């Protein structure tokens, strides 16, 4: 099959006659002697598919230029994400074009890998499967959450070959939510949480703006519920021992002692009942034994705060309580979920903001306890062949106490379909690289009712075959059946998929492909609280380890999830928004605790639990609970094995899972993430992490501003805005056509870094590595800053995306000796790379320091260079660069408008950062158009310019954060260490 055919098949308007899938395709170079009708050079084709970087299943549009995907954007029609995408989704391209992608099957011989042909590889696989005949349950299949056809096919395949039931391995499977719902409502499901419909959100450790369940969906909903709009806003209270990114967006962050979330939730419920704040008295029994005073003592949360939380939550019409982020999931996981359910039930939220019916696909994850049983079976020699799907990495993501690697070593034959080397493929005997999800057919239903359809968006960049195709072929050869017959009659997975979808699409296949799937309304399922509810155990979570140790909070990384994202250099270099650390993992220690232990920032600390030890550099945090340490999960290895210069792999790894026990929460079978106390010992070595923001203290410079809610409401009514007046001897600049401008709503920004990664993807921004990044040489055009106001132990965090401000009186322009920096007549600060000599005067004179210099010639290791956006220049050594407001998109938008013989309107031009923002905090538009959103927002009473006293007159306007003045919350939590 050639390229022309490929495009005929998959173009969104395309033909139906897909004959042979694309697995035989080899990489071809582009030249087309006879141009393809569907392929116009310079014009992008867009393909709808589903993001598989995590189980949230957001809809994606892949922008294909000349046969290769160069950018991902959220699918605006997809119900989960409505056009937005998180940082991990944006960075999926780096997995697609990863330099380490396995090309063709590889067989392990001793420690070395040898490339083998597909025929030989499949023959070997078939032989090993054939040898299983008569040995039931000796075949095990482990895959990531596949809620669609591939999952069904895997089940069928495994069953046909006499294997064990398939294990769906998701390290963050929310088993406790399911068991809690089973206990409370009699429904084993993860429901839809309607953040957008809530007035008050009360979260017990649920990091829903980072990874919890479906973070983009939650962030969108949260922004609708919480972002200040014309005086209206919601309230968000977050209970967690660590100030996470999610906690930073809370109006009130309540710091509790680790493991006391269930107790706090029950105490809140009890106070609601006691205070007569809820009419529903049925839950009295469940909280009869709860003593709020004792809870206040144990959790370190003052009783006043508990009362206040109860009152606020009860007053909401409706509210929403969520709970059980990974970091707080331990032996009390199910108790916490039950407590959360009771809170929701008591406040009358069930059915309003907690909606059963469109249940999340997480309900199909194999509970960890069963995964553990499989591992034990492997260790006991019961498994002869282990088949690992793409996206699973049990040797890394399962608790160290389970000793997974040793168990896998006991399996005589391990086949991995991973297309990137990881800790588990290192243990495999045969690697059969699966196609990347952007190269594959497939489907994924994140919710009941949302059936996302996946299509190949380009030909495979490396030799790979879809897992489904390989299994069908091998399965048939083992069973001795022919194509079209037997239990596995389909020739390819694509054929299977089409067959499975026929009843759904009923002939409207192209429409479904075009839309990215099929959405259906799912009737809400009515649930009732179980009649008999025993008292819920409100004790603190049980922690193993030394009594004087510190509770280990292992939490999923915003950037790497369970480690799947760690191979992406973009995600490594974009800093964690809270700590602003790039590249290295770290252990977060309370500053006072660290002082007590004599630990300084950057000291390498040995973190020891009863189950293992890891060595990590220390990061001192003034806000973390003194009795806890926090380690992000997911930091794996340096991005490319072929290029170690970014950061040595040994430094890039530090897996807190190694510290965790094998045991599970008895009630739910969930892994116990919060279950150990650890001891910290200084190793004497130093490895300061690369912290990209010099300080979080604004030094009264009002870079990120805030107003309190009363004031903001008052101003919103009156519509006043005071502005610095800067008299000038020069005449005002006139804009004949457009004047482009942007606004950033600091109140809506949650600091998720999606914009920074989208910008990097769109604008060919290179990656520089740890050493260079920590030395102020990172090249990000857009950086996300965290500014902390108030008490350092309990700060109000303000997130500020900072990029070129496109000043009208730009300090960078007059100092450039060659006019490389100049003012365009549409209000941009242009930068002519060809003219730039590299005096760097502009870089000194820019008060925002958003201009980036090419200190070296940066490279894009093959095949990453294919991802480069052909519309954007790749800059040479020695020139300055900076945000262009996506000038290539402006040009394209103006062209489209001109074709329609009209002026550019709102929405014609969307910058990359704006496009991907889950909370729509960024707006771009024409400032001369009085009706445009950007104009309206620029005149908002909350509008301000960063460093406006310098008189630079930026084209980027920020809207102050609205701080909800709550009853003063005393610095929470003495806690118990």
């Amino acid at each position: 099959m050639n390229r022309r055919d490929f495009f005929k098949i998959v173009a969104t308007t395309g033909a139906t006659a897909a004959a042979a899938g694309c697995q035989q395709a080899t990489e071809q170079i582009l030249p087309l002697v006879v141009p393809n009708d569907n392929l116009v050079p310079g014009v992008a084709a867009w393909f709808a598919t589903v993001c598989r970087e995590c189980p949230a299943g957001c809809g994606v549009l892949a922008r294909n230029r000349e046969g290769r995907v160069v950018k991902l954007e959220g699918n605006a029609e997809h119900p989960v994400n409505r056009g937005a995408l998180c940082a991990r989704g944006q960075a999926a391209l780096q997995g697609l074009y990863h330099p380490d992608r396995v090309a063709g099957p590889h067989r392990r011989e001793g420690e070395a890998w040898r490339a083998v042909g597909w025929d030989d590889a499949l023959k070997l696989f078939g032989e090993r499967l054939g040898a299983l005949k008569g040995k039931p349950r000796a075949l095990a299949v482990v895959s990531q959450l596949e809620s669609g056809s591939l999952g069904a096919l895997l089940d069928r395949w495994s069953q046909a070959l006499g294997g064990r039931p398939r294990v769906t391995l998701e390290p963050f499977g929310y088993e406790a939510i399911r068991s809690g719902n089973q206990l409370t409502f009699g429904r084993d499901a993860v429901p839809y949480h309607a953040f957008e419909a809530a007035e008050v959100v009360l979260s017990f450790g649920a990091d829903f703006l980072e990874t919890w369940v479906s973070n983009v969906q939650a962030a969108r909903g949260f922004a609708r519920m919480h972002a200040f709009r014309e005086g209206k806003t919601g309230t968000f209270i977050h209970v967690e021992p660590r100030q996470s990114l999610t906690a930073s967006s809370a109006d009130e962050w309540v710091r509790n002692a680790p493991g006391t979330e269930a107790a706090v939730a029950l105490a809140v419920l009890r106070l609601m009942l006691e205070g007569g704040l809820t009419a529903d008295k049925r839950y009295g029994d469940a909280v009869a034994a709860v003593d709020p005073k004792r809870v206040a003592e144990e959790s370190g949360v003052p009783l006043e705060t508990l009362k206040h939380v109860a009152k606020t939550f009860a007053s909401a019409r409706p509210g929403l309580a969520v709970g059980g982020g990974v970091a707080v999931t331990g032996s009390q996981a199910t108790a916490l979920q039950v407590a959360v359910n009771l809170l929701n039930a008591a406040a009358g939220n069930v059915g309003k903001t907690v909606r059963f019916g469109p249940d999340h696909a997480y309900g199909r994850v194999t509970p960890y306890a069963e995964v553990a049983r499989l591992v034990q079976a492997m260790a006991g020699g019961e498994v002869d062949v282990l088949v690992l799907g793409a996206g699973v990495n049990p040797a890394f993501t399962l608790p160290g106490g389970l000793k997974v690697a040793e168990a896998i070593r006991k399996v005589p034959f391990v086949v991995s379909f991973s297309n990137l080397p990881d800790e588990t493929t290192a243990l495999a005997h045969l690697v059969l690289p699966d196609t990347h999800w952007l190269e594959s057919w497939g489907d994924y239903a994140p919710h009941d009712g949302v059936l996302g359809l996946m299509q190949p968006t380009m030909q495979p960049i490396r030799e790979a075959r879809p897992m489904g195709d390989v299994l069908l072929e091998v399965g048939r050869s083992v069973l001795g059946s022919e194509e079209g017959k037997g239990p596995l009659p389909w020739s390819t997975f694509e054929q299977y998929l089409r067959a499975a979808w026929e009843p759904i699409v009923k002939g409207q296949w192209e429409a479904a492909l075009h839309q990215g799937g099929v959405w259906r309304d799912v009737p809400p399922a009515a649930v009732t609280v179980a009649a008999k509810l025993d008292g819920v155990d409100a004790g603190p979570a049980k922690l193993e380890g030394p009594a004087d140790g510190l509770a280990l909070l292992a939490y999923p990384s915003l950037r790497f999830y369970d480690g799947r994202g760690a191979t992406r250099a973009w995600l490594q270099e974009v800093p964690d928004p809270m700590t602003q650390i790039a590249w290295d993992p770290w252990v977060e220690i309370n500053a006072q605790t660290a002082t007590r232990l004599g630990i300084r920032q950057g000291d390498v600390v040995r973190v020891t639990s009863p189950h293992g030890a890891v060595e990590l550099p220390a990061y001192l945090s003034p806000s973390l609970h003194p009795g806890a340490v926090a380690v992000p999960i997911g930091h794996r290895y340096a991005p490319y094995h072929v290029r170690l210069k970014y950061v040595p792999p040994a430094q890039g790894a530090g897996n807190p899972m190694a510290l965790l026990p094998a045991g599970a929460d008895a009630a739910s079978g969930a892994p116990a993430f919060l279950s150990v106390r650890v001891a910290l010992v200084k190793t004497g070595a130093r490895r300061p992490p690369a912290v990209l923001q010099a300080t979080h203290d604004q030094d009264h410079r009002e870079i990120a501003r805030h107003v309190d809610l009363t004031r903001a409401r008052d101003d919103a009514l009156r519509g006043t805005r005071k502005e610095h007046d800067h008299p000038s001897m020069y005449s005002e600049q006139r804009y004949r056509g457009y004047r482009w401008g942007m606004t950033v709503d600091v109140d809506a920004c949650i600091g998720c870094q999606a914009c920074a990664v989208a910008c990097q993807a769109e604008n060919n921004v290179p990656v520089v590595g740890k050493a260079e990044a920590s030395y102020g040489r990172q090249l990000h055009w857009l950086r996300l800053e965290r500014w902390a106001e108030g008490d350092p132990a309990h700060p109000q965090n303000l997130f500020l995306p900072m990029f070129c401000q496109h000043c009208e009186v730009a300090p960078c322009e007059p100092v450039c000796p060659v006019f490389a920096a100049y003012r365009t007549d549409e209000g941009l600060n242009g930068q002519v790379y060809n003219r730039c000599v590299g005096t760097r005067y502009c870089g000194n004179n820019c008060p925002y320091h958003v201009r980036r210099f090419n200190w070296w010639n940066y490279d894009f290791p093959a095949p990453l260079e294919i991802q480069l956006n052909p519309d954007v220049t790749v800059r040479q050594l020695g020139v300055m660069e900076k945000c262009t407001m996506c000038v290539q998109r402006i040009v394209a938008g103006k062209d489209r408008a001109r074709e329609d013989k009209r002026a550019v309107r709102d929405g014609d031009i969307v910058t990359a950062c704006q496009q991907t923002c889950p909370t729509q905090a960024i707006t771009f538009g024409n400032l001369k158009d009085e009706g445009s959103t950007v104009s309206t927002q620029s005149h908002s009473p909350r509008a301000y310019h960063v460093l406006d006293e310098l008189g630079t007159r930026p084209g980027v306007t920020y809207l102050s954060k609205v701080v909800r003045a709550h009853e003063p919350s005393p610095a929470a939590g003495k806690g118990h260490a």
Partner: protein
Amino acid sequence: MSAPEPRPIAGGAATAEPTFADVNRDVLATLRPPGNLYFAWMSLVGLLLACGFLAWAYQIFYGMGAAGKRTPQMWAMYITTFVFWIGIGHAGTLISAVLYLFRARWRTSIYRAAEAMTIFAVLTAGLFPLIHAGRMWFAYFLLPYPNQRYLWPNFKSPLVWDVFAISTYLSISTVFFIVGLVPDIAALRDASTGWRRRIYAMLALGWEGSDRQWRHYRRAYGLFAALATPLVLSVHSVVSWDFAMALVPGWHSTLFAPFFVDGAIFSGFAMVLVLVLPMRHFFRLHAYIRDRHLDAMAKLILVTGLVLTYFYICELFTSWYSGDHFEKASLFWRLTGTYWWALGTMYFCNCVAPLILFWRKARTNSVILYIVSVLVLIGMWFERFNIIVPSLAHDFYPATWGIYVPTITDSTIIVGSFAWFFLLFLGFIKVMPSLSIVEVKETIPPPMKDARHAGLH
């Protein structure tokens, strides 16, 4: 050369007035084939220069990242050293032109060396814009050359002003230097033979010493002196505007032009002493470079040093009195932050060390003068460092504050620039008279057959 064996009148006979013949002989003696010590110095300087060029080649090939610059210090040691050398280049013109117009006679024995120093210092400084530019191969974009695209440099940019100021300064001071050399080269021509004679003959431009020639020479010299005088003030003022025109706290100040000019004279005289004292010692020129010359220069160093101290106080005061948050924060950080030691070094070398020159004996003691001069040079290098690096380190935007750390590459290039300067100067003193034969003769009585007759003139 067929000059007779020198009879140095220096040393013990320092009080004896030299005669015209002595002058000719002693000055031409400085051009005698050099000894081992000279070659040892030349080898060392040549080696350092070679290292500097290698480092520069490395930086051009791999990129500006080889120098330790970063955000926020987009400028660092290169501009520091550039401004330092421009400052050094000041004293020469001051001595040759301004002091000439003021008829300060003590300038005669040192002005040749000072002028040479000026030109070499400007030649050294002129390398730095190239070394500093990210794409030095396009540095010609800064020149207003005619081109098809009608692209001109940006005349608003102080860097373009620099280009004009420095090229003007270099050309005027070079012409002034060459004009002053003509009669001396003629003397050289007359004293040499063979190919040297032919070269000197060409350079002497047919000088015969006729009345007409002398009259024209005097006119021209006076004219160039008048032309060069405003440049003494303008060059360093323009260089100071590189900083004063920028927004950066610690740079944005109207104080900068006089502050820089004074500092330049201060460091320029120190450099003259650093060059002239060894010359006097090794060439035994004590009869020409006398203690009163040293005393006069030492006084100038003292005065400019005191003025500089006054400017430092002004700088501190205006920062504090402005009430500007950014200025105050920047100043406080410069005093207490990472680079406090650089500021301390500067204050000690520029404000405290020269105070010893209040003591008359120190002003004529070569050793003390030499030490003070070296300290002043160090102090003035750090002055520029303190303006550039710590100010940028702690400017408007706290998120990007950062510390600059030098690398081997940029340090080697800086050392190489000193080697380049000394290579030029060491070469010069062996091919050209480093004392002005003509002007030294002016200060001593003309030779007469009858000594009494001479006295009557």
